[in-house]
């Protein structure tokens, strides 16, 4: 598609206008009217969103949709993006790479999407990245966590169209190791998913914890294939190895099943230190309810009680009013994605990919999860998500994070150039 590039002079002009508008304040000069008069952005802003809407993880897709739709409604009620209506189509990505690719092609070639967002699995994200590069559309990843997406595809191969708004595997592997180093446990074991996500997080956890606390031993690993409903054989493997600590990124429904079966087997009487990097997901907490034991370390990509800011509280209240649910982490990442798009488009006054990349790189975004900064080099959103100990609170029918620890993203996220030990935590400065 042949679209005229923006001229330097126009760009400067618009920059000045933006500056003037913000100096005058929203009360005096509404950006809506200002941008409505700008001929640069034609027609609605179309976002093609894909998430898993079928199979056992269909619940995740629904929560993506709730967040994205809520943002869409809010943005359009307030005049749209730069005076243009925001439009969205949501498609089922299943969890298979071919489906994700098909969706991307449909969105760009047939539906004429300006921007893309979503994607749940790491495998899908890695398959889709080169294609969005060729099709030259921004893709904001809201759930897939593999660090290879940002380290290899974006930083090393230079696919600048890909951004990620959720925390990556660093939160699951590195940050978990920072939590583990302060626990008395010296032997660790894992029941992890038998695919990329499970392998990479366990490696990262071992690597970083080994450096932070030399002498820790990793005594057993048991790998559960996707779709496992019976964790007893895995639980047996772990209990035979008698570790002091258990690490597991088993997630969603499978985590509910694993926790119940481990509880029945009396595993938590014998293993006192348990780290669940994605245990703070709402589907897990609500699904387990009072059956989630106390004093389990959990984290996620966002937890609705953090940060304790007015913006977050208001958002959670609005979300509950709109959907009668507590927001899942994918709801927050989907919601914030729309506002990231809005901010970037209004900052550069265009919906052209090249300019959006420049606008998004290094951009700060105030979101319910707190302040995010899109790191220029690898396009990873830097923001902090706490780790916390499960605790009972009479206000909620499920366990929440009691004692919380924040490992700042800048300390536990790998750093460019993503080569050798110097790029991995712990960092000297």
């Amino acid at each position, binding site marked *: 598609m042949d679209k005229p590039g923006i001229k330097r002079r126009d760009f400067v002009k618009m920059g000045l206008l933006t500056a003037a508008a913000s100096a005058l304040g929203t009360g005096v000069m509404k950006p809506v009217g200002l941008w409505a008069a700008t001929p640069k952005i034609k027609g609605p802003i179309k976002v093609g969103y894909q998430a898993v809407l079928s199979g056992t993880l269909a619940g995740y*897709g629904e929560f993506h949709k709730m967040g994205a739709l809520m943002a869409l409604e809010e943005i359009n009620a307030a005049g749209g993006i730069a005076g243009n209506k925001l439009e969205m189509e949501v498609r089922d990505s299943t969890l298979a790479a071919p489906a994700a690719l098909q969706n991307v092609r449909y969105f760009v070639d047939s539906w004429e999407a300006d921007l893309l967002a979503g994607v749940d699995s790491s495998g899908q994200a890695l398959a889709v990245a080169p294609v969005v590069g060729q099709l030259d559309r921004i893709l904001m990843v809201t759930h897939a966590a593999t660090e290879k997406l940002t380290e290899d595809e974006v930083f090393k191969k230079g696919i600048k169209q890909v951004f990620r708004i959720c925390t990556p595997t660093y939160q699951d592997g590195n940050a978990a190791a920072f939590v583990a180093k302060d626990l008395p446990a010296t032997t660790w074991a894992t029941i992890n998913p038998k695919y990329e996500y499970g392998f990479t997080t366990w490696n990262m956890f071992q690597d970083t914890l080994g450096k932070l606390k030399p002498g820790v031993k990793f005594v057993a690993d048991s790998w559960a294939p996707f779709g496992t409903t019976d964790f007893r*054989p895995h639980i047996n493997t772990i209990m035979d190895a008698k570790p002091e600590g258990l690490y597991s990124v088993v997630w969603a*429904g499978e985590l509910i099943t694993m926790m119940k079966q481990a509880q029945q087997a009396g595993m938590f009487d014998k293993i006192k230190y348990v780290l669940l990097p994605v245990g703070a997901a709402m589907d897990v907490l609500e699904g387990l309810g009072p059956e989630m034991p106390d004093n389990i370390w959990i984290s996620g990509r966002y937890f609705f009680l953090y940060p304790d800011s007015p913006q977050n509280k208001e958002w959670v209240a609005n979300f509950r009013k709109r959907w009668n649910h507590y927001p899942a982490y994918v709801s927050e990442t989907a919601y914030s994605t729309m506002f990231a798009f809005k901010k970037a488009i209004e900052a550069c006054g265009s919906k052209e990919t090249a300019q959006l990349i420049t606008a998004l790189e290094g951009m700060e975004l105030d979101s319910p999860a707190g302040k995010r900064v899109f790191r220029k080099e690898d396009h990873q959103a830097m923001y902090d998500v706490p780790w916390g100990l499960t605790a009972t609170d009479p206000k909620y029918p499920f366990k929440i994070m009691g004692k919380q620890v924040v490992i700042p993203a800048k300390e536990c996220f790998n750093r460019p150039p993503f080569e050798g030990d110097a790029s991995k935590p712990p960092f000297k400065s």
Partner: protein
Amino acid sequence: MMESLVHVCLAGISAGMFIWLVASGLTLIFGVLRVLNFAHGSFYMLGAYLCYTCLKFLGIDFWLGVIVGPLAVCVVGYVMERYLLRQVYDLELPYQLLLTFAVVLIADELVKIIWGAGSIGSPTVPGLAGSVQIVGRNFPVYNIFIMVIGPLVALALWALLEKSWWGRIIRAAASDREMAAAIGVRVPSLYTGVFVFGAWLSALGGALAVPYVGLLTTGMGEAVIINAFVVVVIGGLGSLKGAFLGALFIGLLNSFGTRFIPALDMFLTFILMGVVLLWRPQGFFAGVDR
């Protein structure tokens, strides 16, 4: 080591008994109707959701849910056989597969509409939540219960098919449909009956799985049906004895495989299936109990 071996065995047997409950209905339906029912997993799912609903919203006893849920699924089975399957008995196999697969998709969407797409953690069953110590490690009472139920169902099925008048009729229709019809067996009604009964067995498996798996999700049937298909193929299509032993074998193989040959756990079942298909394509017990 003793502790480990005993628990690996226990885990394998209880898992096998679940597969058996689902596989029994599948193999029965195939043995009599010659239909490979993809939607069998959907009956399992519906059984689980309906049992959960009884438990959660109607506030009734879990055991009543185990009775009511599968009975409600019988109605679904009846409608499916009477109004859908009957149209394709005389057509080629792909039509049956397509039709039953369509039912899978419809059932998944219906469950999403009625119960929502999220996974639902099931409540604990009062009286069965506890565990007992077996050689130094806890084992859930509920799993022991399942290990008793499985063989009981097998025994009841055997008695029904081998010792009762109904069983004779069913076996007659299975071995020669025309002849059975000629001597006055109402084959269409018999087919409906067997299909509904098979659906009930699968739904019973689903209802009993509620506290065992601890989780309800759309698509939960698909996860189970794969194992059930493997078991039915290994045991011999249509053979109940084969399905029982096959399920036990697959359960134990998974449990031992995960513990002792973790690198191969996903493949062991399929390697076994491949070997059986090459070496004894009719399955271990095909024709034995006919």
